[in-house]
């Protein structure tokens, strides 16, 4: 078996596909810590724009949304994301047609599920992200999503908080989206030093008060709450943080 290890970039992935997909027994990953067995051959992939382009063009011939779908899957926090995308690519080239909705083919169903988890989380975060107001008026939202979705959130919040300056900080991946009332960029951020505004505490307290008051105590249904709002997201929610 031959294993292709990429640098984690999208071009890296498509380059690996170019090199791997004719081999009978190949796998792709960007995980450096992967456990190797004795009979494995390892190849480090250098992203190659030309190869990547050719694979993308090949895919688009059969399915115009395939590349966009793959880019979504490559944001996944699932360690097997490259392999899942690779199997999907192979299925398309195999069948020489768009397989997007052939849900009875296992590689397609797993691919869809992985992609939907990414879009679901991006949707959820439009609701669950919490901004803190800083002393200079900037809004700061730290979070730790399962998938790499910050740039999917930026257009939404830039349209919404048009007249504000804000930062969305993925503390796990150490990246941040920054908006300055005109445009947004994604950058690398280590630790962020934040000076919280004087009013901040008042409003987060009011919000907690609201949260507690709007609940109907006679009808507990914690399980449903946890289903819709998984506990791993709570540490960034003022209403759930301590209590």
């Amino acid at each position, binding site marked *: 078996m031959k294993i292709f290890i990429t640098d984690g970039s999208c071009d890296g992935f498509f380059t690996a596909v170019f090199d791997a997909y004719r081999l009978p027994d190949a796998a792709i990953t960007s995980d450096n810590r992967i456990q190797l067995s004795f009979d494995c051959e390892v190849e480090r992939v250098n992203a190659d724009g030309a190869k990547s382009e050719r694979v993308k063009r090949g895919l688009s011939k059969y399915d115009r949304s395939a590349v966009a779908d793959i880019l979504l899957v490559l944001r996944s926090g699932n360690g097997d994301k490259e392999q899942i995308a690779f199997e999907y690519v192979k299925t398309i080239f195999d069948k020489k047609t768009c*397989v997007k*909705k*052939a*849900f*009875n*083919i*296992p590689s397609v*169903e797993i691919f869809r599920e992985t992609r939907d988890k990414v879009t*679901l989380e991006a*949707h*959820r975060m*439009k*609701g*669950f*992200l*919490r*901004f*803190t*107001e800083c002393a200079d008026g900037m*809004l700061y*939202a730290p979070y730790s999503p399962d998938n790499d979705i910050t740039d999917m959130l930026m257009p*939404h*919040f830039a*349209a*919404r*908080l*048009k*007249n*504000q300056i804000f930062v969305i900080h993925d503390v796990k991946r150490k990246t941040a989206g920054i908006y300055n009332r005109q445009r947004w960029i994604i950058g690398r951020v280590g630790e962020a030093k934040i000076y919280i505004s004087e*009013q901040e505490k*008042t*409003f*987060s*307290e*009011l*919000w907690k*008060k*609201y*949260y507690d*008051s*709007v*609940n*109907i*105590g*006679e*009808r*507990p*249904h*914690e*399980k*449903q*709450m946890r*289903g*819709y*709002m998984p506990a791993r997201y709570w540490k960034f*929610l003022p*209403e*759930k943080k301590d209590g």
Partner: protein
Amino acid sequence: MVDENKLKILTEAAKYDVSCSSSGSRRKNEGGLGNAYSGGICHSFTPDGRCISLLKILMSNECLYECEYCPNRRSANTPRAKLTPDEICELTISFYKRNYIEGLFLSSAVCDSPNRTMELLVETVTKLRRDYNFHGYIHLKGIPHADEEIVMKAAKIVDRMSYNIELPSEKSLKLLAPQKTKQSLIEPMKSLKNAIEYERSEKSSRRILPAGQTTQMIIGASPESDGQILKLTQALYRNMNLKRVYYSSYIPVVKSEKLPSVGAGLLREHRLYQADWLIRFYGFDVEEICDESENLSPDYDPKCAWALRNMQLFPVEINKAPLAVLLRVPGIGAKSAYKICEARKYSELSFDDLSRMRVVLKRARHFITCKGKFYGSDNAIQIKRALLLEGINEKAEQLSMFSDRATAISALTGEI
């Protein structure tokens, strides 16, 4: 700054209003703060399992009216509070900026004359839009007996309005909410509907109530059957073009001889929502679901109950049945039906294909064939028992009671 205690009083007074949905509007941000997202967004969930999307408060809970079931009625001995328009605006803006909420759901008790109350509500939302430059979602409750002119003014500013019809019959309304007449609730609904339709036909760019109208009624405070309730529901969808009819199962917070001493079960509310779902998305007519004098079966969901009464229509072939028929198979929800229709274009589907596609087959297998093969039971009693067992699990679960469409779909519950 808003006082914490006031916020508590006015939130607790508003919390029995079920609606919290923020869907249906695409309002744009015109250089200030906020826009609307047509699918709706949930910002948090409370321990009762409900979504928080909007800041849902009363402007005031001082009331001139005497609705029997209401903790804020005139004669009630309860703490009262009132917020000024500026306080409401400030609170909305500061919550919105922090992404706590999607917008505002503002309601009020009839604190002054109906007109004066409605005027104050309109003043508040006008201020929020104009002075505070807010373009997020606003849902405004209509005050019965307020003049049409003021109501229409409100409709041009906000995204959604609702007049709650409160009770499922005029008789119960007279008994339990004597100051609210059927006319005072239905007439404004009708005017708003006509205004929306007129404006759409004119194709003007200014939009009245982009997210339409909704209503709510209390279930179990009065003797109406589920059949009556559903018939009314269907009429409201068809004649008033409502986006949603919400049910709020009665909770005895007020002691009164005119009211039952026990609350309506959540299961009843759940079944009504399932039936409502069938009417709106699954192509069912209320007559197929429940006779006017009858109640829904607590044991089976309404689609199962319908299928059991119509066994002669089953099984249906999964590779041939049109979408509308697939939607009627117990256990196959909208998402599964869609996946089946798409996947069978590539190849004929077998039973194993369905499970690979994660279609839940526990109930469905008794009602379908795959490539002509049947995998269920022929024995009607066995089928009933299998469905009944499912029903019991579901009673323990009681999912999706309050969910609006967006939340229900995203969590894949509510599909039956």
